[in-house]
């Protein structure tokens, strides 16, 4: 199994180096005439108003948290899925219980309106 991970390391290195090399080559081929107006921030063609950091809603963070919870749940379900063919119905019922508890959590979030985008 180690050589499989080794292959993936080599593959990912090449996969990340290839676009980097392409960008570098294009950087050498392209002209470089910087001007003050050219490099200013784009805001629909007019001058920027206010600082460029915005107050962002806590809603993004809440969606991230909900995603994290469901991500961990799904990742915990994967070993069960791999072992599925070998376990009895009793084990399946336990995993069903696991999913149902988290479905209850999703229903709670739905009722509370945490899933609505304002």
């Amino acid at each position: 199994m180690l050589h499989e991970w080794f292959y993936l390391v080599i593959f990912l290195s090449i996969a990340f180096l290839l676009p980097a090399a392409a960008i570098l080559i294009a950087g050498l081929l392209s002209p470089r005439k910087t001007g003050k107006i050219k490099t200013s921030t784009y805001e629909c063609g007019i001058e920027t108003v206010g600082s460029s950091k915005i107050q962002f809603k806590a809603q993004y963070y809440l969606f991230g948290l909900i995603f994290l919870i469901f991500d961990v749940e799904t990742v915990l379900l994967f070993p069960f899925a791999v072992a599925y063919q070998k376990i009895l119905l009793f084990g399946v019922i336990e995993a069903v219980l696991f999913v149902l508890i988290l479905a209850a959590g999703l229903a709670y979030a739905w009722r509370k309106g945490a899933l609505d985008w304002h």
Partner: protein
Amino acid sequence: MTLMQVIFLANALVTIFAALMMVTSRKLIHAALWLVLCLFGVAAVFGMLEASFITIVQIIVYIGAIAILILFAVMLTQNAVDDSYKGNRRWLMTGLVALLALGGTLLALFTWPKVASLSTALTTAQLDIGLIGQALVDPQGYVIPCEGSSLLLIAALIGAIYVGMERKGEEK
């Protein structure tokens, strides 16, 4: 020195370097990126131990979810664009205390016979992920902690929603 030792040393150096850069970065966003590199290093350690499931879970959960949450949090708390670092005047004392605590814990751990002796490597048959799955639903295995973890997750979900949602009538 075998190839594995060289790879492990290189990986450890990269991880420690990333951790150092993380705590000494001026900009928070750079610190978050160094954290991502550090987490990759930890995943590589798991990969070298042939625990492929834990490696991939580390990448999915830590880098795919928690690092993104950290980036969101960095943006949430960085309204004023100032990267000024006020500093910590008691850093020497704190550093010494932390060093003593970590050193003492490691010393205590390594004099514990179960930790100090090398355990036997698992055979390929024992590395099957299906075994983890069977253990997770086995009544003599880990089913109670598994269901307990689902209750923990739902508690976290309810807590997050309670803390994160605006109460009705409260001003934004």
